[in-house]
């Protein structure tokens, strides 16, 4: 554990250096990101200029949801995109061999070795959104609901991560599979709004196939106490199970890679 924390520290340091080496890029990225946030808030205020609630959700709730969505989205940008890019390249040019020959868990290295650090800035924005959303909607939040919210948000992130692991592990079977994460990307934005606003078929997809709704809508529901204890436990169970499945799938993939690569 200590070793892995130490490794994450070194990964962060190296990636920070890389971000600084490309400082114009970093600066422009932060600017663009701010503009996106402005756009998101503008579109929400336009919606609420015309109506009081969206699928039963009030303005404050949607701001909280947007905050949660941005945290999940941040995970995508900090870790999943850069790691995918690096992983795909490394399988194609063979440098993945070196990852396997290091005495560290290969999935850990693949997940954390390439990070887009400046995106951490999003965390501040997201927390501001969540807190202001809570204060807009007013009313007291029960502490057990708040704990459920945190646990479900974490478990939701784990589910998205696990799905990603399975998708990139497919590369071990189909060497050329650069579009592995495109589907994740395509549906990601659906997490911006409560799942109830979508047509039924899309709700099914974003709940069961690419479970982005489980990572965004569900935690905010828990915050308002609209989930039963059983539901909360069930979602947490799904999170834990998907992680186990993903890790096993990765292992099988690595074994397949060692069996067939030349």
């Amino acid at each position, binding site marked *: 554990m200590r070793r892995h924390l*130490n490794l994450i520290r070194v990964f962060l340091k*190296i990636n920070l250096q890389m971000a600084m080496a490309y400082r114009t890029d970093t600066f422009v990225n932060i600017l663009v990101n701010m503009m996106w946030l402005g756009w998101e808030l503008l579109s929400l205020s336009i919606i609420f200029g015309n109506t009081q609630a969206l699928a039963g959700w009030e303005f404050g709730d949607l701001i909280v949801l947007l905050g949660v969505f941005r945290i999940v989205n941040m995970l995508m940008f900090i870790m999943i995109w850069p790691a995918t890019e690096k992983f795909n390249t490394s399988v194609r040019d063979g*440098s993945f*061999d*070196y990852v396997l*020959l290091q*005495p560290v868990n290969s999935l850990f290295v693949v997940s954390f070795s390439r990070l887009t650090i400046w995106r951490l800035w999003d965390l501040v924005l997201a927390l501001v959104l969540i807190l202001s959303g809570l204060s807009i909607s007013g009313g007291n939040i029960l502490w057990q609901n708040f704990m459920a919210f945190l646990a479900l948000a974490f478990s939701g992130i784990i589910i998205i991560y696990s799905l990603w692991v399975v998708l990139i592990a497919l590369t071990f079977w189909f060497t050329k599979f650069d579009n592995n994460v495109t589907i994740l990307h395509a549906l990601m934005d659906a997490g911006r709004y409560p799942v109830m606003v979508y047509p039924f078929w899309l709700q099914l997809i974003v709940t069961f196939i690419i479970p982005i709704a489980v990572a965004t809508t569900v935690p905010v529901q828990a915050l308002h106490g609209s989930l039963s204890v059983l539901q909360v436990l069930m979602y947490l169970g799904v999170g834990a199970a998907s992680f186990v499945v993903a890790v096993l799938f990765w292992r099988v993939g690595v074994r397949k890679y060692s069996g067939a690569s*030349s």
Partner: protein
Amino acid sequence: MTIENIIEVKDLSKTYKVSERDSGFKAAVASFFKRKFKDVKAVDHVHFSIRPGEMVGFLGPNGAGKTTTLKMLSGLLNPTFGHAKVMGYTPWELRGEYLSAITLIMGQRNRLSWDIPAADSFLLNQAIYRIGDIEYKQTMRELDELLELGDVVKKPVRNLSLGERMKCELAAGLIHRPSVLFLDEPTIGLDITAQARIREFLREYNRRYNATIILTSHYMADVTALCERVILIHHGKLMYDGALAELSRKIAPFKVIGVGLENAADYDLTGYGERTVGENGDAMVYLRVPAEQATSVTSRLLAELPIHDITIADPPIESVIEQAFQG
């Protein structure tokens, strides 16, 4: 395994399934729907054992199975059949202790990150291999001294020359002081000076740490400079395992003389030596001549024919090996 042998390989075999199809559009479409597979024996029941501190050259033409063997020994590939023990470990179990004691360095693959200086990648390796600060500094000092790294490690890797990069790759692969080194074409693409420096380094590393080194190379000079013992593989089969001196006596008493000659077809060159194929298919005519006659044949050629260019070289390693098993 016995104590004397650090590497024991027995019946090691690897068969790949390769999809194959005929050329042409129709075959391409057919293979899109139904793949035909062919078994290719990359390594076929190979046996050998290696003592600690030995430097062994792995020779063989492209596709002979050298890289596959190295990959199995380092643990990257599972064999189809047979077994291997390195330092008592079965490589492909990929045990942490095993991986910490070996290294695989491939001349054609990058371990270092492009965008950051090598020194930062070294620090990453320090964390990965859990090397204490004092030991790390000591190792870096020694590697710096042996490889003359200097300021090279402070520049982003993408700005380095091939030779500089290879030095850094070697350093990165050796920070954890492995006692068994698998080197796959470590000098490929380097100029003569850089090749010589890498060789010098490997010899010194072997001497200092009594490291066991298995090396594949296309450059005969790498092998002759470093290895007393060579293992020859051809079509996945072990063809020769023994002293290099023995091997050269068997097959190297030839030189290849390249002759630049206008209208070469007009001349009968059979009196000078056996026609052979050049390496790069240029306009030169190549003759295979017994080594001890090389000088005299050259002077005869120059005296008797209107020659505008001439080269003398050792036969390329592929043809040496080819010859070893034909004759």
